[in-house]
């Protein structure tokens, strides 16, 4: 809000306020959109609607946080959509096919996520494949694995699995993650904020986090300073896989079943959110808070447009337009 207060009338922008304007442009865009939707629709500015937005945003936000970690080390992880899918299948299969407890239903998908992250890191750090290509390959491989494992059928309560009847249930405690709420706030949203807080502290308040940024800023300089470049990149991809798996768990809980390839549509929203976050403070530097705001921006937009009865298929046009505006503010800044 201080940025708002600092805004003078048009025509007498000092370089300092201009800088502030650029820096907080994306934040202003979010606020402007909120104001617009509030006037356009009475139900928009309600507590219930905002918890809905948070709930719907949370899944792609977890994936976006994963992408953010890969961006911090100047990489790019596009396998997160498939990781979310395989995490979904892993969680559902644990409960429904293998009748396991809550802990197993959470640990299995997390392990799957970290494993994919480590394989990504192996391809990138040890074999030297370009980040985008390695994770793109893994996107296919992982997607194929979860489809092969399930023969392409979703796993839900009472479904048959590979020709045999299943006896397990989606545990109510597991369903709480995506569907429950505490004091009116969705559990998924609370979980998201906790993860955001931890990730933020890690990246901005620990030297390991800063070293990740140093690797991303100039990997060669990092190597010539003796920073463990390979390990830091491996850690980033492992975290990315882990966070995508968390997104997959929340997704499973939300829909109450293990739907095949459920994570795939999340990928592009997550990438967009991370890049909006990259641009959001005009710094061109990936950040956790920026990514959260990016995800919120996209969520608010979709929610508001839906309320205004904008057809679903037209929403992508608006989404793309906002993406352009947010990035333009950051990238045009150099030229003035």
């Amino acid at each position, binding site marked *: 809000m201080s940025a708002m207060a600092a805004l003078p009338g048009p025509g007498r922008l000092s370089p300092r306020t201009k800088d502030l304007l650029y820096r907080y442009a994306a934040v202003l865009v979010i606020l402007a959109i909120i104001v617009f939707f509030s006037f356009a629709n009475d139900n928009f500015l309600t507590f219930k609607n905002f918890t809905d937005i948070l709930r719907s945003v949370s899944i792609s936000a977890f994936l976006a946080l994963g992408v953010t970690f890969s961006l911090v080390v100047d990489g790019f992880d596009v396998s997160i959509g498939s990781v979310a899918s395989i995490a979904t299948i892993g969680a559902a299969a644990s409960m429904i096919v293998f009748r396991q407890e809550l802990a197993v239903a959470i640990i299995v998908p997390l392990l799957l996520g970290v494993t994919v992250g480590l394989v990504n890191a192996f391809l990138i750090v040890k074999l030297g494949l370009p980040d985008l290509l390695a994770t793109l390959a893994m996107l296919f491989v992982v997607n194929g694995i979860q489809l092969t494992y399930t023969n392409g059928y979703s796993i839900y309560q009472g479904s048959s699995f590979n020709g045999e009847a299943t006896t397990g249930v989606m545990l109510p405690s597991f369903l709480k993650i995506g569907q429950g709420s505490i004091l009116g706030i969705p559990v998924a949203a609370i979980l998201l904020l906790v993860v955001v807080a931890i990730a933020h502290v890690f990246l*901005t*308040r*620990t*030297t390991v986090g*800063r*070293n990740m940024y*140093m690797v991303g*800023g*100039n990997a*060669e*300089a990092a*190597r*010539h*300073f*003796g*920073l*463990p470049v390979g390990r830091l990149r491996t850690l980033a991809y492992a975290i990315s896989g882990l966070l995508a798996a968390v997104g997959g768990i929340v997704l499973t809980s939300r829909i109450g079943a293990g739907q095949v390839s459920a994570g795939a549509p999340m990928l592009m929203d997550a990438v967009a959110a991370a890049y909006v976050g990259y641009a959001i403070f005009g710094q061109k530097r990936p950040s956790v808070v920026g990514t959260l705001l990016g995800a919120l921006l996209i969520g608010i937009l979709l929610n508001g447009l839906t309320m205004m009865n904008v057809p679903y298929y037209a929403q992508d046009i608006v989404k793309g337009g906002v993406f352009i505006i947010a990035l333009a503010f950051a990238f045009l800044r150099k030229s003035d």
Partner: protein
Amino acid sequence: MTLTLRDLTHDYGTGPVLHNVTFTVQPGQVHALLGVNGAGKSTLIHIATGMFAPTAGQIVIDDEPVAFAHPGQARHHGVVLLAQEVDRSLVPQLAVHENLTVAQRHGIGRRWWFSPRSDQRAARALLDRYGVKLDVTRQVSTLSLFEKQVLCLIRAVASNAKYLLLDEPTSSFDAEQVARFYEIVRALIADGLGVVFISHRLNEVFELADEITVLRDGRTVLESAADQVTPAEVVEAITGGDVAAVRRSERVSRGGDSLIEPGEIPDVVSTLRQAQDGASSTSVGEGAPAFAARGFTIGRNHTSIDLELKSGEVLVVFGPLGSGKTSLARQLFALRGSYVATVDGHEVTVKTPTDATRLGIALVPEERRRHGVWLDETVGTHLALGLNGWIRKRREARRSDDLMAKFDVQPRESGRIVRRLSGGNQQKVAFAKWGDDIHRVMVLDEPMTGVDVGAKESLFTRIEQAADAGTAVLYLTAEPDDALRIADRVLVLGDGEPRTVPARGLTPLDLMFSNEKEREV
């Protein structure tokens, strides 16, 4: 048919770097341009090739004043620089003949279609004319560095070059390649090409040059026909004859005896011989080596180098460009894979750069902007890199204030982005990011490149302080003045076997001629 740079003066805004320099290239002649780094050679070359316009003065071709707004115009007038980085000017995915005809077609107007076969024939004819044996259909990426360099040379001629600027062209060649390269250059000269020749290798200069011009601090200090001047005179012109700062080897009284009488023109070979004898009797630095490692291989002949670094000693590795100094620095920091070192009498395997830092090895790399600093990070971030654990703002601010003062970083602003510092101050940051605790070994690879005189002396002082505190310093350079300013011992690289000699009493001439003379004997 003469290219003249007349009364050039240039100023980057930080004081003039060229003062009224006039430089002429005649067709069919080689004019050598000599000087230490920062003497103004690069500026002169950049002006001649149209990279930027001089503050004052003009470029005259055949009595016609011309102005180059960009490098393309210089090329249009036939002024071509043979760059050291050949990979940038060739298209690696294309064949030899394609790289040649690209240049030609650009020169003689545009055709929309072409015949690969006639292009190949033309390319073959061109290569044959200068006795170059090269399959024109080979992809450029499969060529050796030497072949690429030759291709660049031929291509320059194909694009109607009249004046060719060679900047350290042979730095990565072996002796035979050097000879073949100059054979081609001589053929080009015979065809009427005018050549500007920049080299640190004085023997090549004297073999090839008709004229010699020496720049120092942006002024012409020597201009002469090559046969009217002796190597010693040239070296003296290059280095200025006197060394401004007091040499470390003369201040620190643990070197050998003075080896030459003042005023005596030293006989290089005997000086080095004496120096070697001296090395065995008087040890520079005391006690067991703090760090030793064997079997580093460097240079085009894969010369094997063993290093023994003593605590508190500055060992300068002196060698011309391309002699493998950077490779040595990189190997020592385990950037080229693991090696075994002896540290305090224990054998350790150094597998990664991280291991190297754990052993207390610090590296200030040669390419400062790419490897030494993060251009888009703040000074404060660099100076906090040595810390571990939680980021505590106050601890970092204290450390960065402290280090900025100790390394004299100007301006003393920890929030300043490193890109916006001068070269010298960037280098101070590259040093200071290692902190001021005592390192076991400091590896400094050409640390004074692009560093202004003031910053230079303050960096030298820092290096001496580090050494006096017990750090073993390995200083790699091709600049004889810098080498002798800081050295306790000098390891001379070159065409022959590497030798270590005490620095005391050595002159720049000894260093610059040590290898060539040896060969003649």
